[in-house]
């Protein structure tokens, strides 16, 4: 399991662009927002938490089709199917690797981009906390979407259509935490809900992903 994790991490870091792409996308989205809504500082401050959450979510989505597609093409998935390691575990590890290479950098970059959008000072802490709690769920749910579409040619767009509705609850609670944090209100309820979703998804989703992958590759 550890070998698989290390393999995925090194591949992501080495495979030219896979690692930095999500971050660059996040940056560009954030930069484009003031161009589209205007440079008023108060307006930007108001929408900053939501925009940052949406940007992180889209950046995460962008890298999903690489999650399993490359392994499908070079035959690694077939090996994983017959490996002694349960497929559920392998997929959890792959989701973890995806989070480490995509979600974690996004969490760390978010405060820097918050400056660009004039985020309220109180909001930084809760933005980082909400992203740190929420992005693992995005990776795990995305893994399910990637497993669904793995055998389909040009499945990228379909993947987005399937995964985005599943992201709704996470986005709502995550952005709510960041928004309330920026406004100085209490954040406990949405944060607990967000953490609940993440835990449930981490616990249950790999079973669905593995089942789907077995059906798809049969």
């Amino acid at each position, binding site marked *: 399991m550890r070998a698989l994790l290390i393999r995925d991490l090194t591949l992501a870091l080495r495979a030219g662009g896979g690692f930095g792409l999500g971050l660059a996308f996040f940056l560009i989205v954030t930069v484009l927002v003031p161009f589209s809504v205007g440079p008023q500082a108060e307006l930007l401050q108001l929408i900053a938490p939501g925009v940052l959450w949406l940007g992180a979510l889209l950046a995460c989505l962008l890298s999903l089709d690489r999650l399993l597609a490359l392994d499908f093409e070079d035959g690694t998935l077939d090996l994983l199917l017959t490996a002694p390691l349960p497929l559920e575990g392998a997929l959890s590890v792959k989701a973890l690797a995806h989070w480490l290479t995509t979600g974690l950098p996004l969490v760390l970059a978010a405060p820097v981009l918050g400056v660009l959008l004039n985020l309220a000072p109180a909001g930084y802490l809760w933005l980082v906390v909400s992203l740190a709690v929420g992005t693992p769920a995005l990776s795990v749910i995305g893994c*399910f979407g990637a497993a*669904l*579409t793995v*055998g*389909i040619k040009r*499945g990228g767009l*379909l993947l987005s*259509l*399937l995964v*985005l*509705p*599943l992201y*709704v*609850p996470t986005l*709502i*609670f995550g952005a*709510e935490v960041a928004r309330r944090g920026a406004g100085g209100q209490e954040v406990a*309820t*949405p944060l607990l*809900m967000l953490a609940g*979703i993440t835990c449930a998804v981490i616990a249950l*989703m790999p079973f*669905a992903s593995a*089942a*789907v992958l077995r*059906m*798809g590759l*049969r």
Partner: protein
Amino acid sequence: MSIWSYANPVKFLTLSARVQPVLWVLSMACVATGLIWGFFGTPQDYRQGATVKIIYLHVPAALMAINAWFMMLVASLIWLIRRHHVSALAAKAAAPVGVVMTVIALLTGAIWGQPMWGTWWAWDPRLTSFLILFLFYLGYIALWEAIEDPDTAADLTSVLCLVGSVFAVLSRYAVQFWNQGLHQGTSVPVATGGRSVDDVFFYPLVICMIGFGLLFVALVFYRTGTEIRLRRAAALRARAGRAA
């Protein structure tokens, strides 16, 4: 004789051919009666004026939009557990009907909302949930279309339907938390046995709901038959191609 004998496509088609005429006539009769009664025979609401007549389309469509998804969920479970092809095809056949019902509910809601709330659209929990449901339908249908092997497609869409149901319910609560809405409570709360609609409006509404429900069943029967025939034709073609 158990209900599972209808998992045999031939038996299903025979049953379907026998009940369909009845279903079509009954559903058309109910929809027509309910709508005509509602449109011509009910008074105006003292606050909402004539717009109350939209309820005879809006509520039944919304009801069937949710029930269609629920039926797909049950059919998907049956396919996953007992692997009856008819069940998977019935789920596939129901999805476009559900989409149309969702669109009707959303459109009539928008038309109703404009004079009553002063806006076509509000990010109200109920409205938002329906929009999300619409997205789930689109994803489900797109996945069916994308996969070539029919059994794999049935498998994957079934799992998507299960997972989607969980997330649809989750979204419902998330959205409720996110924004308290304008929409009034449910019109016909079955669980409590009460009702928030006056008798004058209630009877035509119930007839419309029954009519929409029967129409849904008739459409699903017909469409499932279509899917079975297409599947059989494809199988025959494949066999002929192999023999040639």
